[in-house]
């Protein structure tokens, strides 16, 4: 628990200065702090301000470069093709801050930390992990979360949702599935632990299964599970959750299927 608390505590925030001077220890620490910045808008604002001090320090160190450098650089530019703009990710970045920055993080940060910790602990307990193993599990879970940077903010939003709920269930093939969901966001985050490894390129596929069997859309794919690392799969984010849905899990041929082709190894009722 201590480490999780530290992750969000002053300890990390105080590194804004060293980060603005590029004085963090190594790439790992830099990545960890950059991730923290994405979650902490106050820290990001502080870094922006401190970076301007770095800029001032650079201006104060101004020195005249050799005259030939100008010609070389300009000639070089004439020969180098520029990168295309990042259209999709740029749009994403533009879209996110609009609602992201409206979230009162100072209020939510402790709750988010608590929710994350609670989920990790619940998962650990349900998995029957020995007490001594818990810390390692938490680290693994955290590492798993860290790997999904692109969807990280969306996942964090689910974890931080006021109506966040969590449910865990064993599969008939062994292993456990943990679901964190927000009915308001209509999104859920699924991670698994200890599922048997599959052969022949087969994959685990998630399904949302509605209560009304007469509807054509009663079974919707909720995505494929990524390959497990150390027995854990990194969180899968699925949208379009409807009240009364159950979560299903089946084994499907490589690439997944449009509808389930095998008997589900998990049918988990989801809290409304």
């Amino acid at each position: 628990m201590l480490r999780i608390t530290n992750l969000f505590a002053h300890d990390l925030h105080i590194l804004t200065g060293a980060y603005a001077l590029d004085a963090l220890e190594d790439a790992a620490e830099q990545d960890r702090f950059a991730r923290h910045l994405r979650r902490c808008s106050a820290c990001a604002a502080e870094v922006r301000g401190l970076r301007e001090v770095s800029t001032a320090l650079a201006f104060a160190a101004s020195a005249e470069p050799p005259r030939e450098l100008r010609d070389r650089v300009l000639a070089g530019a004439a020969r180098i093709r520029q990168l295309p703009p990042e259209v999709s990710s740029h749009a994403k970045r533009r879209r996110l801050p609009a609602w992201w920055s409206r979230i009162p993080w100072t209020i939510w940060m402790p709750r988010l930390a608590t929710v994350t910790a609670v989920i990790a602990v619940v998962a650990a307990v349900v998995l029957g992990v020995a007490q001594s193993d818990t810390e390692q599990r938490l680290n693994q879970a955290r590492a798993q979360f860290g790997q999904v940077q692109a969807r990280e903010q969306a996942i964090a939003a689910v974890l931080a949702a006021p109506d966040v709920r969590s449910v865990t269930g064993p599969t008939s093939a062994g292993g456990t599935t943990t679901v964190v969901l927000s009915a308001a966001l209509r999104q859920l985050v699924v991670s698994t632990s200890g599922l048997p490894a599959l052969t022949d390129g087969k994959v685990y596929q998630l399904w949302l299964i509605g209560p009304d069997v007469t509807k054509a859309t009663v079974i919707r794919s909720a995505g494929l599970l990524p390959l497990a690392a150390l027995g854990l799969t990194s969180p899968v984010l699925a949208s379009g959750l409807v009240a009364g849905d159950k979560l299903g899990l089946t084994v499907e041929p490589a690439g997944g299927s449009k509808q389930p082709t095998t008997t589900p190894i998990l049918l988990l009722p989801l809290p409304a």
Partner: protein
Amino acid sequence: MSRVDPTDPPVEQSAAGLSSVPSAESGELDLDRLLRRVARGDQRAFEQVYDRLSRPAYGVIRRVLRDPAQSEEVTQEVLLEVWRTATRFDPALGGAATWVLTIAHRRAIDRVRAAAAAAEREQKSADYHAPRDEVVDAVEASLDRERVQRCLGGLTEVQRESITLAYYGGYTYRQVAALLGVTLAAIKTRIRDGLIRMRDCLGVS
């Protein structure tokens, strides 16, 4: 794609409230606009960006690397990187000068921390003990420099030394802590507090 429109409204400045830094004061928005033109392949705009930012870029790289030939090489790399990636510049995350000079400083730091360079530099910087004098040496009769100098002068000894050792010396905060003989927790705090004081000092014109 709206960001390449030269008629874009001015970009909101940092939430930290620092609306002006030296040299950027009158030209930051123009630089942002120039960089957007660079993103569209405008070589004349790139020339102007070169003329505005090559001195601080070369200056800070040279301060960190010391070796003039290597510094020139890295400066060239950095400025061509600016040309190549100008399409990825996002004014929402900071001004153009900060973007370019962050790339410059990081590239210099990368060089320093590459294992091979480290050993070589060890010798060249053997006499490196007086960061404050270095800063003083670099001062020209420029208002910008005077302001930075004055603000650095307003810090405590440890704050000033930790900032100059980290930024100009290219040391990590652990290395700075070892050099100054203080704890890691203390050095993190000194660097942050010092920079915040600098920010407030520079922000007051």
